[in-house]
């Protein structure tokens, strides 16, 4: 009996306790118990005005920070913003406009709202400005900088292959190992740092030596640093730059206080010490064109014949001024041309560099870990949908990207004592030609056909891999002479040597790289010893970061990456 009484008391106490918790939640959380605890949301309209010292501001973007919906101001600077904020409490409403610092106003709902005042970003680039070290940025943006630091983008100035190509060295630091820009041009420093160490180039000029940059204690000089990119106001055509475009910087502190001007894609970031300014350029592929295209202007009166390599529309799309220009790295133009030729209703229309190279990766999940992190979470964190976040891993030419960049299908047909093999290779995920970027890269198709006893079948018809795919034991990656094909851009000098460095190149010998979403069809014929036998075909697509002759000369320990393989 006593046990029963105790149980009844316990149950009653538990019930009272649960009810108290429920009522507390309902009272403080303004939840509706009849709707199963769902917060009551009702569309509310917030009206207000965005102004500056010069008067009302038109086309400013106004929103509740982190929300997708935003309103644009009219000529009188007025806006009407729809939101699902619950009534009661105070809320932040932000405004941003290109060329102005973002700002915020606190409002109560319902109730009148004060004006949001924006300050202009005056054009006042200061050449003596010292860029902020990424170490500083990392104290708040922990995940963003961690992934950036692991990317190639963070180490462009210390890339050993870049240094070897510039100074004519090898990984053992032996001197005089061709090719080397300084070996061929002892009087010229080159302008590599324009892209490989842009903070240093902006501070000290583009002829600054790459080695001295590496030896410098200025951590902001290594790689393409946070503060460099986030100081870019505009990208303009500039033929004095190796890429033909130039970043226009705005190196300055904000008008008030010691805040640092930071351009970015958000119009709702108001978080000192950053003085954030909305800049749509950050969501535009044009931003990447500052470095991801590279041409060479041939010496006076020299020209080459692009029509032997490219169709007229391809050549037009590469946007070289005339035939005295040699396209070296044209990733941006390849993408631009692909986009331009797509019909307006194509599902790929509007895809840009940032979509693929700044997208989410599985290892970053759960999403909330990356949304706001470190100090920022404790201090000014704005919840933002993962959809609106660009992780800074800058994947490109990495195994993750390469595994799905191309796809391959095999079809075979036996006719008498002959096997016809068709190989279809498609550029599935590349929004540019594959491989892209530095012309020392190549993709190889390797096709092996054998009978049911494992004997290799003789190829009667079809292409073979060229000698530069490696001569010697195939087990060691030497595929020259084997059935297959290669996809690469080959630079040639005036003596007819292939795979020369860009500064020696006078023409493009061939460019067989695979265009975006296009399929290359290759046909092969093999002799069958026994028409009744069932042969097997194995095909591999292999990415080689550096063509073998160059890797051998330089003794670079580069590894092939298997992109995909198929069996028929």
């Amino acid at each position, binding site marked *: 009996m006593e046990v029963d009484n105790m149980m009844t008391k316990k149950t009653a106490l538990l019930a009272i306790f649960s009810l108290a918790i429920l009522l507390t939640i309902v009272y403080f959380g303004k939840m509706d118990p009849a709707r199963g605890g769902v917060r009551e949301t009702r569309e509310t309209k917030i009206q207000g005005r965005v102004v500056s010292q010069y008067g009302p501001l038109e086309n400013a973007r106004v929103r509740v920070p982190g929300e997708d919906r935003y309103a644009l101001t009219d000529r009188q600077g007025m806006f009407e913003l729809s939101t699902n904020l619950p009534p009661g409490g105070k809320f932040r409403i932000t405004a941003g406009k290109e060329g102005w610092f973002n700002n915020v106003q606190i409002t109560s709902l319902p109730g009148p709202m004060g004006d949001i005042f924006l300050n202009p970003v005056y054009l006042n680039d200061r050449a003596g400005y010292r860029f902020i070290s990424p170490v500083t940025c990392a104290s708040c943006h922990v995940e963003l900088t961690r992934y950036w630091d692991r990317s190639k983008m963070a180490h462009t100035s210390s890339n050993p292959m870049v240094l070897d190509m510039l100074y004519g060295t090898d990984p053992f630091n032996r001197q005089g190992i061709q090719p080397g820009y300084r070996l061929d041009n002892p009087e010229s420093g080159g302008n590599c740092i324009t892209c490989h160490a842009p903070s240093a180039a902006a501070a000290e000029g583009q002829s600054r030596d790459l080695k001295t940059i590496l030896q410098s204690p200025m951590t902001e000089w290594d790689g393409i640093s946070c503060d460099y990119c986030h100081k870019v106001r505009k990208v303009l055509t500039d033929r004095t730059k190796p890429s033909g475009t130039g970043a226009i910087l705005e190196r300055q502190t904000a008008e008030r206080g010691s805040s640092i001007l930071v351009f970015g894609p958000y119009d709702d970031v108001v978080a000192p010490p950053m003085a954030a300014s909305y800049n749509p350029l950050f969501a535009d592929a044009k931003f990447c064109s500052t470095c991801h295209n590279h041409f060479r202007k041939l010496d006076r009166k020299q020209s080459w014949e692009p029509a032997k390599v490219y169709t007229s529309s391809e050549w037009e799309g590469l946007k070289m001024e005339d035939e005295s220009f040699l396209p070296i790295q044209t990733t941006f133009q390849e993408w631009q041309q692909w986009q331009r030729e797509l019909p307006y209703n194509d599902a790929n229309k509007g895809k840009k560099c940032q979509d693929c190279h700044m997208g989410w990766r599985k290892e970053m999940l759960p*999403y909330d870990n990356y949304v706001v992190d470190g100090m920022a979470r404790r201090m000014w964190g704005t919840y933002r949908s993962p959809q609106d976040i660009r992780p800074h891993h800058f994947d490109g030419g990495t195994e993750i990207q390469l595994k799905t960049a191309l796809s391959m299908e095999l079809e075979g047909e036996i006719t008498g004592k002959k096997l016809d093999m068709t190989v279809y290779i498609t550029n599935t995920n590349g929004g540019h030609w594959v491989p892209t970027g530095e012309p020392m890269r190549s993709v190889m198709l390797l096709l092996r056909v054998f009978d049911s006893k494992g004997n290799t079948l003789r190829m009667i018809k079809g292409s073979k891999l060229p000698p530069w795919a490696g001569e010697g034991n195939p087990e060691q990656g030497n595929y020259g002479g084997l059935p297959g094909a290669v996809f690469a851009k080959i630079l040639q000098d005036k003596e007819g040597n292939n795979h020369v460095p860009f500064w020696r190149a006078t023409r493009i010998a061939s460019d067989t790289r695979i265009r975006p979403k296009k399929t290359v069809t290759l046909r092969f014929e093999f002799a069958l010893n026994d028409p009744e036998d069932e042969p097997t075909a194995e095909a591999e697509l292999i990415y080689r970061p550096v063509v073998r002759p160059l890797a051998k000369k330089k003794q670079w320990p580069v590894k092939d990456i298997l992109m995909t393989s*198929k069996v028929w």
Partner: protein
Amino acid sequence: MSHQFLTISIAFLLLLSVPFQALAGSITGKISVKGLRSPANVLVYVTKAPGLSADLSNVKFTMDQKNLTFVPHILPVLVGSTVHFPNDDQVAHNVFSLSRAKKFNLGSYKPGTTKTVLFDKPGIVELRCDVHAEMSAYIMVMKNPYWAVSDAKGSFKIPDPVYLDQHGIKGVPDLPPGKYVIKTWHEKLKTAKKVVEVSGKGETAFRLDLKRGNPSVLYK
């Protein structure tokens, strides 16, 4: 009189059905693998068998997108089926395929949205997401309903009553007696091929040992 006629008719029909039952069989088996942790998710299928002329409008296959992953990784469907592609993630996805068996591009679409695609040609359809390089999956468009996906122990049964029922495929009879070529497909296992004879006396059982390697095409 009519009652007697009905009884005789039913008895006759029952008699007729007995030999048909006995003259059809299913294939069961077990898979063991070398180089993989589990013998699960291996597609085992009959290369040539009678197709199914059934209404597939109520059949529902789903390829979900969640946490930057297609779920399931491999989805066998019967030719003529429609597959639903819900986006149950927190970011937009763009499912597409440039495979010869089915080319499509669903464009970028937001979480909470579902799109559908009809798969009308047999073969392997490699799925990709245009903005997330890590995402890939396969839709295996099968010529006939005689396939199974091995369970955690490597066991399978063709036709697979559970799988067919789950997706609303009805009216799949057992295989008529005869010799059949059985093949396997798994992304990381070499395709195995075996000829089995269905006797019509119930189940035909066999065992398959698979090794790590590349699978072959679905139909040569």
